[in-house]
């Protein structure tokens, strides 16, 4: 058993031997702490902001569901028909309750309106901005959700009580949540303009809900209406999003079966939590990849710890030998250095927690926009932090610290007592071991190759990330041999062209091969992270640019303005299509509808378009390279002969569900099962969930739905797109809120969304540069301090201050160049892994390789400049070193 006195004595030893050394090298210690802090900060920020999306949705789901334990939803993305309600009346006898719910998203228009026109009278929605808000509609008289709340607190915010409770049943009247009222400055009795589908409508605020119960759903930023007025507002007469049921828990399963038997095949009765799980599943790839990328920053931070600790152990080998000779046991040596690592890790992680909380405020905005636009269609609430989040991030920081400390601590523990009287023995050992280390590196590289060809685990590229990690280790293991081969000729080269002293500077790096290897490997790892992220993002962007140029061929693109805020919200009225077709200059229109559906238990999109128009005017890029019109001519009759619906699928759908051209699949529709024959697979980057696209005529018939999501308008060659746009806008009703974009504007919009989606990744690229800069500074400082004795000796032998400074700068640039060059090589391999394995397995997208030279050269230039600048301080320090002082310090 340990005694307290032993622990105190142990800590005293730690303070004397390790803490003082950390303090003496405080600049390096600070850089290391900053490195790990940045890693932990990025991890926490991404964790908090990406989790906020799911937590917000699940919390709202619980509040809206109240005590409901079952719900009826559609699997085809279609609304439910309220005609089913009378058939469920037997449930009252059980006794059970059910209530219809209509849920959608509207946008609250912001900005001032021209004074002489009504608020809803500006069809040019491009000039207006709006904020997405969930709209919830229930049967206000019959709904039990409000009554089910256990607390008896008032449902109204202070000053928000309705003056007349019956107002809510009137058309265009609504309650708003307290948070929304606060954000938008709304008051009871005031009017607000909302965009619903393609129209702007004025809603009167009848009351303001408190944050308790239903009013607290969506963090209090919601619009609540009675069912009838909401159906009228959304053009959904007799339609519902779902039916909430509250049944006795002990009869739940039997009742679930009984209700299911009554429903059409495309409807399902399920637990309300299921929807939360589905949203979690939907966001999983996005979240996991953000998390995995944020781990990169932490990994680089960990390498910084590894770097610092390794160099410390190498530097203090003789000191460890003395302690061992005086009676310090192996495990005590290990404990001292482990404590040193944990000390630095703890300080770095704690600082990272504070920094992460601050950074999360920024990342939340970026993540929120992406989640809202591409996934849930609902704005993400505010950050909610629990102590477990901090504990989680802290634990990762400490975990990576421990991981980074394993090798140096082991190295320290194996120092023999005899090394108390030896010097440089470790360096000579490394010269001997470098070949074996390289063989280990090759083995790790082969293991990485094996891992890179493994399939994903539950749609997560676990082996892909393992391959990346193994690749980094392999590079680190091969570094000593590489330096052993490169440094002598480099030294000769420098001696020949830059003078003997510069050659000597490089020779000194060769003499301290252990320290140099650790430094170069750490630097290379930082650079490789930077290069791989830059190449991945650059390649992806370039691929999307090419795809946009190839795919977007129409002259005008029309969709409800609200759709530009979220892809899942807002539909066009069929009358708009007729209006477009009648506009002079319009040659053809491809009308497209898309709805989220469930296929094989997962969410994907069903789209329907006008194949003839697409075949004739569009240039949908097929993977086979064949023109769409030819494919349709050949395949469509074959499919129809088999009774299959001719279908095109996106590449991500094909990869996700493992389907190929020529195959058939079945999906549910309100009119029964539909057999789809896959004609071809096309390249698409608009959704990682994938698309199934069928002819719109079939969709309208089988899904009984003539609504539209967007229109691609092809003009006569002589027509001017801007003029046609103006003409069309003049024909629109005054309340229309449409986004009408020219080809060029839409292409720019697609790239804007891409950049917005990658905003967090760009930020992480910035962090990677920052950590790389820290690594360079740290490494150079360490090396120069280590060479102080040699430099002092040179000074003693007559070298001038200027010569010493130049030598240190040569060392800095040599290290910087070698680290950057090795980092480029490893980064290139990492980028292949990111593009061909990790991205493909996560998002099912094929990205074309592209070197983003300007960004890469800029980043490399910055790193080399940092290496040079990083050498300036140590060079000054070394230049000022007194010969006697340096020699005496030994």
């Amino acid at each position, binding site marked *: *058993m*340990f*005694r307290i*006195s*032993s622990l*105190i*004595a*142990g800590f*005293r*030893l730690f303070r*004397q*031997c390790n803490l*003082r*050394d950390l303090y*003496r090298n405080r600049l390096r210690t600070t850089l290391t702490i900053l490195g790990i802090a940045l890693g932990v900060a990025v991890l926490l920020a991404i964790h908090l902001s990406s989790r906020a999306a799911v937590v917000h949705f699940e919390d709202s789901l619980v509040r809206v569901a109240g005590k409901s334990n079952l719900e009826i939803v559609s699997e085809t993305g279609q609304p439910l028909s309220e005609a089913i309600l009378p058939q469920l009346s037997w449930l009252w006898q059980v006794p059970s309750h059910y209530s219809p719910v209509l849920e959608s998203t509207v946008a609250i228009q912001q900005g001032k309106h021209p004074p002489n026109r009504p608020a809803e009278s500006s069809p040019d929605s491009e000039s207006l901005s709006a904020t997405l808000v969930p709209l919830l509609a229930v049967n206000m008289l019959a709904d039990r959700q409000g009554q089910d709340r256990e607390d008896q607190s008032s449902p109204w915010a202070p000053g928000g009580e309705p003056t007349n409770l019956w107002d809510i049943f009137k058309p265009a009247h609504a309650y708003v949540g307290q948070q929304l009222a606060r954000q938008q400055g709304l008051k009871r009795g005031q009017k607000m303009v909302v965009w619903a589908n393609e129209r702007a409508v004025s809603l009167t605020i009848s009351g303001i809900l408190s944050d308790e119960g239903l009013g607290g759903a969506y963090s209090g930023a919601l619009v609540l209406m009675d069912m009838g007025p909401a159906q009228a507002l959304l053009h959904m007469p007799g339609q519902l999003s779902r039916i909430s049921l509250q049944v006795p828990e002990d009869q739940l399963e039997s009742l679930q079966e009984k209700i299911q038997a009554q429903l059409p095949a495309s409807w399902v009765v399920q637990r309300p939590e299921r929807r939360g799980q589905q949203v979690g599943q939907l966001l999983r790839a996005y979240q996991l990849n953000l998390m995995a990328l944020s781990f990169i920053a932490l990994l680089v931070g960990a390498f910084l710890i590894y770097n610092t600790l390794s160099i410390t152990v190498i530097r203090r080998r*003789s*000191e460890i030998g*003395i*302690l*061992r*000779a*005086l*009676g*310090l*046991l*192996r495990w*005590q040596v290990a404990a001292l250095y482990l404590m040193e690592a944990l000390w630095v890790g703890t300080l770095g992680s704690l600082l990272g927690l504070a920094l992460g909380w601050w950074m999360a405020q920024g990342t939340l905005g970026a993540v929120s926009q992406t989640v809202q636009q591409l996934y849930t269609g609902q704005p993400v609430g505010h950050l909610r932090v629990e102590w477990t989040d901090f504990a989680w991030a802290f634990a990762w920081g400490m975990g990576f610290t421990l991981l980074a400390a394993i090798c140096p601590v082991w190295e320290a523990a194996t120092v*023999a*007592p*005899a090394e*108390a*009287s030896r010097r440089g023995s470790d360096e000579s050992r490394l010269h001997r071991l470098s070949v074996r280390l390289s063989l280990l590196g090759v083995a790790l590289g082969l293991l990485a190759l094996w891992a890179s060809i493994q399939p994903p685990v539950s749609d997560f590229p676990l082996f892909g990330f393992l391959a990346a990690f193994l690749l980094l280790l392999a590079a680190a293991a091969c570094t000593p041999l590489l330096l052993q081969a490169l440094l002598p000729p480099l030294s000769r080269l420098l001696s020949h062209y830059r003078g003997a002293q510069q050659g000597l500077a490089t020779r000194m790096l060769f003499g301290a091969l252990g320290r140099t290897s650790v430094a170069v490997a750490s630097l290379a790892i930082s650079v490789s992270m930077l290069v791989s992220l830059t190449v991945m993002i650059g390649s992806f962007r370039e691929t999307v640019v090419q795809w946009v140029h190839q795919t977007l061929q129409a002259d005008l693109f029309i969709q409800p303005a609200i759709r530009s805020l979220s892809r899942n919200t807002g539909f066009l009225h069929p009358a708009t299509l007729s209006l477009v077709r009648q506009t002079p200059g319009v040659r053809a229109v491809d009308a497209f509808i898309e709805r989220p559906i469930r296929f094989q238990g997962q969410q994907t999109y069903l789209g329907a378009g006008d194949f003839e128009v697409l075949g004739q005017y569009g240039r949908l890029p097929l993977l086979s390279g064949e023109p769409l019109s030819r494919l349709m001519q050949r395949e469509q009759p074959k499919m129809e002969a088999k009774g299959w619906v001719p279908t095109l699928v996106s590449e991500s759908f094909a990869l996700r569900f493992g389907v190929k051209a020529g195959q058939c699949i079945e999906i549910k529709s309100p009119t029964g099962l539909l057999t789809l024959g896959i004609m071809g697979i096309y390249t698409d980057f608009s959704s990682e969930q994938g698309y199934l696209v069928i002819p719109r005529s079939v969709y309208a018939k089988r899904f009984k739905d003539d609504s539209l999501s967007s229109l691609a308008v092809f003009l006569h060659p002589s027509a001017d797109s801007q003029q046609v746009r103006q003409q069309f806008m003049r024909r629109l009703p005054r309340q229309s809120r449409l986004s009408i974009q020219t080809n060029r504007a839409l292409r720019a919009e697609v790239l804007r969304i891409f950049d917005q989606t990658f905003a967090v990744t760009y930020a992480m690229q910035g962090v990677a540069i920052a950590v790389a800069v820290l690594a360079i500074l740290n490494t150079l400082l360490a090396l120069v301090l280590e060479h102080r004795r040699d430099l002092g000796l040179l000074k003693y032998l007559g070298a001038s201050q200027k010569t010493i400074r130049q030598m240190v700068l040569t060392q800095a640039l040599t290290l910087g160049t070698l680290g950057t060059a090795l980092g480029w090589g490893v980064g290139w391999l990492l980028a292949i892994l990111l593009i061909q394995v990790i991205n493909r397995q996560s998002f099912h997208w094929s990205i074309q390789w592209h070197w983003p030279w300007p960004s890469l050269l800029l980043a490399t230039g910055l790193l080399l400049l940092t290496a040079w600048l990083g050498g300036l301080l140590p060079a000054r320090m070394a230049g000022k070193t007194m010969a006697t002082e340096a020699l*005496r*310090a030994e």
Partner: protein
Amino acid sequence: MFVLLCRRPAFKGVGTQVTDLNKTTPSLPGVSVVGVYKRYADAQPWVVEDACLTLAAGEFVALMGPSGCGKSTLLNLMAGLDMPTRGEILIAGQPLNHMNDDTLTRMRRTQIGFVFQAFNLLNTLTVAENVRLPLDLAAAEPVQGQNGSSAETSLGHRQRRVETVLEQVGLTHRQTAYPSMLSGGEMQRVAIARAIIHQPRLLLADEPTGNLDSENGQSVLALLQSLNQTLGQTILMVTHSEEAAAVASRCMRMKDGRLQSP
């Protein structure tokens, strides 16, 4: 030689404190080196070859020889800092070769004192902390069956011991100085103080006067002699100075890795 022996030690308090230390010193064991060989790699020549040596308890032996003859290597082997390639080294009848690393380390910590040729002081520690280090190391590891000795392991007790030993070596006034602030002679005295603070049964000194001027060298030799005579400590001192060897009760010579017959 007589002059050297009769010379009053330059360090204050040697005579007064030795008696106290003697009270706690257990009876000294002998050291035996039996047919020891050492080389660092298979293809390399023997650094120590067939070394046989016996030190009686309380004996002060000088080991002389030219540079590179294997003296320091033999000393390292006897201290358990290195392992012989062949042969056996016994301290108090216990063979070092058969001890595991932890046992060997504990034995070094409790029974052996080592004075390094290059002092080997820790730069981050003050003089007092360097000297106290062996006691701190012992205190940091609880030894089974060692209970009720908190008075001995308390910091106050250890600090008193440090003060006693520093007084012996005449460095009381330099307690808070760091090694970089000391002269060569002072560093060597700190190294000796560190080697004797835990009252080792065997003191091994590797050229303790090699880096010192004549005056400081003589002071160190007088201190070693005093420790041997008053405490009965077994001392093996490596030196290539005839003057230093004269202080010892017996002198052995080594050449090309082999111990020469007296």
